[in-house]
């Protein structure tokens, strides 16, 4: 069973990497880009029966730093999200 965890910077947290990507896109002539935010995608291969709350626990304890990041979990069967 697979789950995908998307880790993104919270709104308002400066993202120097996103800014650099933005500038590089503009340098390539893509001038219709308003903003860029870079994040992470983490793919988990999980034992059957792993609950949503266990995955959320993984996110809170390790996969995301909730001081600066939000996370969102995508599963084939169900979806959950965490904001803190």
């Amino acid at each position, binding site marked *: 069973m697979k789950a995908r965890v998307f880790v993104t910077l919270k709104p308002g*947290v*400066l993202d*120097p*990497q996103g800014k*650099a990507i933005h500038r590089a896109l503009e340098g390539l002539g893509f001038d219709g880009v308003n903003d860029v935010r870079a994040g992470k995608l983490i793919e988990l291969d999980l034992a059957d029966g792993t609950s949503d709350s266990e995955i959320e626990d993984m996110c809170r*304890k*390790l*996969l995301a*730093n909730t*001081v*600066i990041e939000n996370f969102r979990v995508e599963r084939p069967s169900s979806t959950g999200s965490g904001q803190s």
Partner: protein
Amino acid sequence: MKSAVIVFPGSNCDRDLAVALEKVTGRAPAMVWHRESELPYGIDLVAVPGGFSYGDYLRSGAMAARSPIMRAVVEAAGRGVPVLGICNGFQVLTETGLLPGALMRNARLNFVSRPVALKVENTQTLFTSGYNAGEVIHIPVAHHDGNYQADADTLEKLESTGRVAFRYAEEVNGSARSIAGIVNEAGNVLGMMPHPERAIEAAHGSTDGLRLFQGLLETVNA
């Protein structure tokens, strides 16, 4: 003073830190591997060194913060044992939650490795009694992720309670309020990006780092 230096795979300032601690305390620190679950008995100072623990995978300091020894360090900090985190050590301490905020990628994305001017903001901490208030000292930095960020409330609280120990006196990495080092609420945990252990001998170009260790020794022995 009995000290311990925590060693993670990828630590690379552990031996410099040990040399500094031995020079000042006259006693070689215990080098404690990250898989240990306990600190040696009777430790007066835990030092978390710089480097690239676990290759900076996931986030700088994230994996190290979840290693077995850090549970013991968090527990010791709770008992009031002084804990000093330098560079990657600072990142590890924020990841464990011992210190608030986070160290993000430098604002200009470059790795910064040079001596920087630091203002000593608070000399009333365990770690800064060797300095004069408002003094500007010179200590090297060497980091990619030193851009200190925290929410507005946290920053305000750090400022109003004198928990900003060091502030950059020049632009270095984009840190909020130019913060270079902070202490926890109880005052026994310091995290800082600059490397005091790299400024302890005339040959280093500065001995300003030495006074941090000397001040700490005096406070702990007092």
